[in-house]
């Protein structure tokens, strides 16, 4: 065994261990903040796995997108609504937990079977890719063009949705004292610049 192979083996073991332990921590810990931080650990371990598979660009993108953006946003959301209220214990909580465990074990069995039965010897010898970013770009603009563009459309839809939600502003003071029942189900909106042909009716009366 050469030095490189030994390093790979040890790194693989350590990464596998951290991935599994951190993922179990995400699910099993009671404190949601710990779960969120451990999720970041899971993402980083997965990025390490990508590195071991010679996918350095994907590993860096994994850290940038999942750790740097997704996980930070999750933490943001948790910390901005940081209500420490004791949750009322559920009745028959073990039924839900048992069902969840059953579904998870079933999924695990399914994936395990697939992993074992598939023959993984697709290529006799893994080709060494020099510039991974270049190869990814070539694939994105040839045989993976449609999924790539569809993903960007999906992100565009999500962004438009986020903008629409962000432009509404809930103003609780505006509703105090008026007895109009029609207004209850409408979120009062911030006054906008007249873009629409007819301006919206002022809501606060």
């Amino acid at each position: 065994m050469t030095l490189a192979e030994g390093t790979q083996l040890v790194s693989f073991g350590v990464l596998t261990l951290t991935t599994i332990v951190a993922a179990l921590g995400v699910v099993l810990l009671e404190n949601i903040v710990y779960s969120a931080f451990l999720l970041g650990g899971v993402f980083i371990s997965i990025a390490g796995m990508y590195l071991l598979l010679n996918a350095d660009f994907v590993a860096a993108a994994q850290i940038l997108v999942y750790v740097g953006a997704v996980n930070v946003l999750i933490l943001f959301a948790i910390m901005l609504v940081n209500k420490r209220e004791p949750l009322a214990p559920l009745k028959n909580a073990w039924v839900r937990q048992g069902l969840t465990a059953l579904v998870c074990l079933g999924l695990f069995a399914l994936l395990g079977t697939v992993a074992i039965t598939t023959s993984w010897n697709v290529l006799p010898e893994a080709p060494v890719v020099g510039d991974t970013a270049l190869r990814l770009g070539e694939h994105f603009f040839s045989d993976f063009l449609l999924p790539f563009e569809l993903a960007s459309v999906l992100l565009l839809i999500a962004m438009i949705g986020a903008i629409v939600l962000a432009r509404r502003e809930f103003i609780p003071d505006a509703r105090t004292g008026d007895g109009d029942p029609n207004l209850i189900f409408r979120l009062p909106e911030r006054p906008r610049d007249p873009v629409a042909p007819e301006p919206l009716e002022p809501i606060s009366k």
Partner: protein
Amino acid sequence: MESGIDLQSSAIQLLVDLGLPSALAKVLWLPLPMALMLVVATVGVLIAVWLERKISAAVQQRYGPEYAGPLGVLQPVADGLKLLFKEDIVPDRADPWLFTIGPAIVVIPVFLSYLIVPFGQNLVVTDLGIGAFLWISLSSVTPIGLLMSGYSSNNKYALIGGLRAAAQSISYEIPLALSVLAIVMMSNSLSTIDIVNQQADHGILGWNIWRQPVGFIIFWISALAETERLPFDLPEAEEELVAGYQTEYTGMKFALFYLGSYVNLILSALLFSVFYLGGWSFPIPVNTLAAWIGVSPDVAWVQVITAAIGITMVLVKTYALVFLAILLRWTTPRVRIDQLLNLGWKFLLPVSLANLLITAGLKLAFPVAFGG
């Protein structure tokens, strides 16, 4: 451009000649560049702290540190020793685990980014194919550590500081990445070595700063915001938040934040000099100089001088930028948080997108000048 001194292969060859097996020689070599980079980063921080004290004193017409060593050069060492010996306090109601891990998560990615900082053709820890991208993705890990320490301190100022730090660093990462992307597009590579070599041809005229006049300003503003320097030091705004996410920290944990922020400042300056100021290249190409005095650039002593000039050039450019950052810190007022976010999202982001688009257009139109 494969000339220059290759310390790695020479050192391994030397060890093999001494009778060691080649695998052992490689193992012996491996930790050397990494340890050297740690030392370089730490000494760089000491110099930057001394400069900060001296320049701030000069700006305010004071003397600054004088007694520790000549001109007070040992003052940063004294600072560091003081922090080292201070009692390590964890607040009573804080979360001890997150409180301890937080500073480490802030510091580790910054030091890891030094992997890709080149001081010469072969004077780099590793020439990664994804160099610039690695830096951007690693710098996006830092906000997690800031959020962690802000949250675990169990202090409202610390929490607000952590949230501000995360918001700021996410906002400014995008213009930063887009301005780097324009450079990468001109160099056809993410590797820092290739980025420097692409600028090396015409001396000072070939540096990217002339080709990216908008890009380098965006990069500098975003880098200042990422390193939380004034005018963008909102996460630790003293008048509003005591010290932001560092409020409850003391001793070595505080020293880690302090170290991390200065290492990050120097890293940003180093990468600015790599991306826009031609890295290790001299204003007049060294090969041209060698041709003028009539020696071949492949002679051993010329190569040693070339390497020395390269390292000196990187450091000179870097510390000129650090000087600029310090001067900005002590002469500009702090922006408000809404001004900061407006600047990032409504001004820098569209401008950097337009810069990217124009660079792409120019690259198609003038492939000679813009690296076609």
